[in-house]
């Protein structure tokens, strides 16, 4: 199984590499280090969000409210910054993580204590959170002129040649990697995804584990709320509209199984990077950006066909089916 996982990520990395090579053949400047760094930086937010979504999907749940959470937290932080520019940015970022985690906890509580299917809960909070953006802002925008310079510039600074935004992604990826591979909590996410019944007998609280996955996804969404707003310097109701599916797409392309229990940090990151590379390559090779949506759709379908195959060879799919139908 380990070898199989490795090959899947290897194939994905090769796929990304192939796209880069193909584009470079015609446009040599595409693969210059500077441009690759830009692509990485552009994809940082998606990578972080994909990691949060992965934690949720591992537990056989799904969080469709991440983009709305991001928009709501982003609007809150932008309005605080516009009203009180003196508040230090690190405090604002911490506030974002807390607000996002609280929104995620709301999802988690409904899933844990009331046992409502996650897709229903997050379908509801998807619309509720985005509606709340409108309620707190009155439909108005917060634009660049209203934001403080530190608020906008923080992520644009660079450290050791890498933009601060990319460092956020690196740190979050490192933390999630440690959580997933080096802590009992991380193993619990996988355990309840692979076999909830067995997980219960090993003493894992299934509901609580799902709750924590939602809190993690929420906290990451909150952090990305600040990063998104300060990157695109506009906070409005439409921020990241429909992005929830891009996040799921990154996970699926990265080999995270929607049936739970299968997925790695590297896979989710590569899935996000794949979308990032394709989106950056399109304008370069002169394809209209309107192709983006169809291409990511096709990529999801191809990825899920390939994933379905490799999962089946392990003989796990029968178990999934039986439990899904139970």
């Amino acid at each position, binding site marked *: 199984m380990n070898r199989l996982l490795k090959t899947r990520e290897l194939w994905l990395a090769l796929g990304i590499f192939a796209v880069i090579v193909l584009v470079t053949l015609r446009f040599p400047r595409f693969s210059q280090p500077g441009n690759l760094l830009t692509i990485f930086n552009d994809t940082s937010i998606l990578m972080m969000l994909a990691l949060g979504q992965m934690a949720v999907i591992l537990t056989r749940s799904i969080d469709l409210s991440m983009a709305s959470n991001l928009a709501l937290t982003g609007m809150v932080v932008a309005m605080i910054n516009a009203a009180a520019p003196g508040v230090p940015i690190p405090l604002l970022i911490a506030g974002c993580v807390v607000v996002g985690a609280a929104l995620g906890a709301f999802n988690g509580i409904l899933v844990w204590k009331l046992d409502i299917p996650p897709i229903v809960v997050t379908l509801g909070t998807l619309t509720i959170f985005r509606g709340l953006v409108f309620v707190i802002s009155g439909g108005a925008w917060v634009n660049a002129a209203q934001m403080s310079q530190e608020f906008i510039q923080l992520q644009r600074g660079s450290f050791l040649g890498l933009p601060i935004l990319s460092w956020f992604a690196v740190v979050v990826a490192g933390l999630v990697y440690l959580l997933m591979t080096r802590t009992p909590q991380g193993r619990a996410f996988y355990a309840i995804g692979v076999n909830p019944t067995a997980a219960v007998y090993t003493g894992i609280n299934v509901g609580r584990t799902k709750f924590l996955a939602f809190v993690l996804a929420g906290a990451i969404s909150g952090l990305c709320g600040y990063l998104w707003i300060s990157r695109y310097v506009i906070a409005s109701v439409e921020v990241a509209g429909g992005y929830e599916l891009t996040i799921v797409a990154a996970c699926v392309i990265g080999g995270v199984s929607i049936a739970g229990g299968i997925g790695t940090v590297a896979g989710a990151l590569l899935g996000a990077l794949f979308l990032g590379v394709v989106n950056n390559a399109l304008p370069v090779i002169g394809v*209209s950006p309107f*192709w983006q949506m169809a291409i990511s759709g096709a990529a999801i379908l191809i990825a899920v066909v390939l994933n*379905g195959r490799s999962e089946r060879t392990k003989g796990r799919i029968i178990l999934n089916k039986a439990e899904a139908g139970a």
Partner: protein
Amino acid sequence: MTDFPATGRQLPNRLDKPLKSAVLSWESLLVLVALAIFIANSFASPYFLNEWSLSDMTFNFTEKALIALAMALIIITGEIDLSVASIIALASTMMGLALQAGADTPVLVMVGICVGVLCGAFNGFLVTGLKLPSIVVTIGTMSLFRGIAYIVLGDQSFKGYPASFSWFGQGYVFWVISFELVLFVVAAVIFYVLLQHTNFGRRVYAIGNNATAARFSGVRVDRIKFVLFCLTGLMSGIAAVLLTARLGSTRPSIAEGFELEAVTMVVLGGVSILGGSGTIIGVVLAALIMGLVTFGLGLLNVPGIVMSIFIGSLLIVVIALPILFRMWRQRRA
């Protein structure tokens, strides 16, 4: 993907219900909610109780509800189709292309419906033929179908549909009764009979309750699921015809968010998202409730985005209340 059921799942609706359970059923609760909202609306706005207002109200939900009827069947089998709104976008775009090629109304309608069925068949093939989880497949086709619409149209739009075509979305059959409403009522009756009074319907429930057992009892699970995906495509194609005719134009962003509203209608209507139970009457009532809520709030000048808070809360509260009630009763017992 779905939640792990800790306890046994709900049994499907029984054909012969005792009176008491009928009174306490989900559907009667929905009737009460609908009545309450109706009364609240008529107090809240002086413009509500007017035959033309009420007729306008039906346009708020007919297209989505047509899809919800088929979606209910899919969800009862334990699958889901999130690509319905994108099917509308693609079907509408293809109708626009046909229009450019000089097609007339009958051809336009045929194109819309055929594209819908083909998209549904594509979903169905991926889910049943390649044995892939429907939620991922339809998230993928959701991007793919609408993506094709964006490739064709970009930031442009198709306009200039003939008047005879517009009738499907704007015409009235009799007095204030619109063609859309008539079509919805007819479709609701057909789906009611199909689900509740045919062998096909019983098989749909059987698959949702235990696909393995259904297969061993001779139900052709994959074929039925495939048919249901085609059916959802068909209803989306019909909705595309109605919506395009009503709006009189096609943009690639047409019908955005319809999939969530259709799923909300189905779940609000008492269909278990885990599959196996639910009724068409519930779905119809839920569609009516959502139409009433959005229209009533609209009359009060509440912006659409705020309405979505109500819809989202309604979805969660309506699911949570019976669970809380059950927990409360268990604690007392």
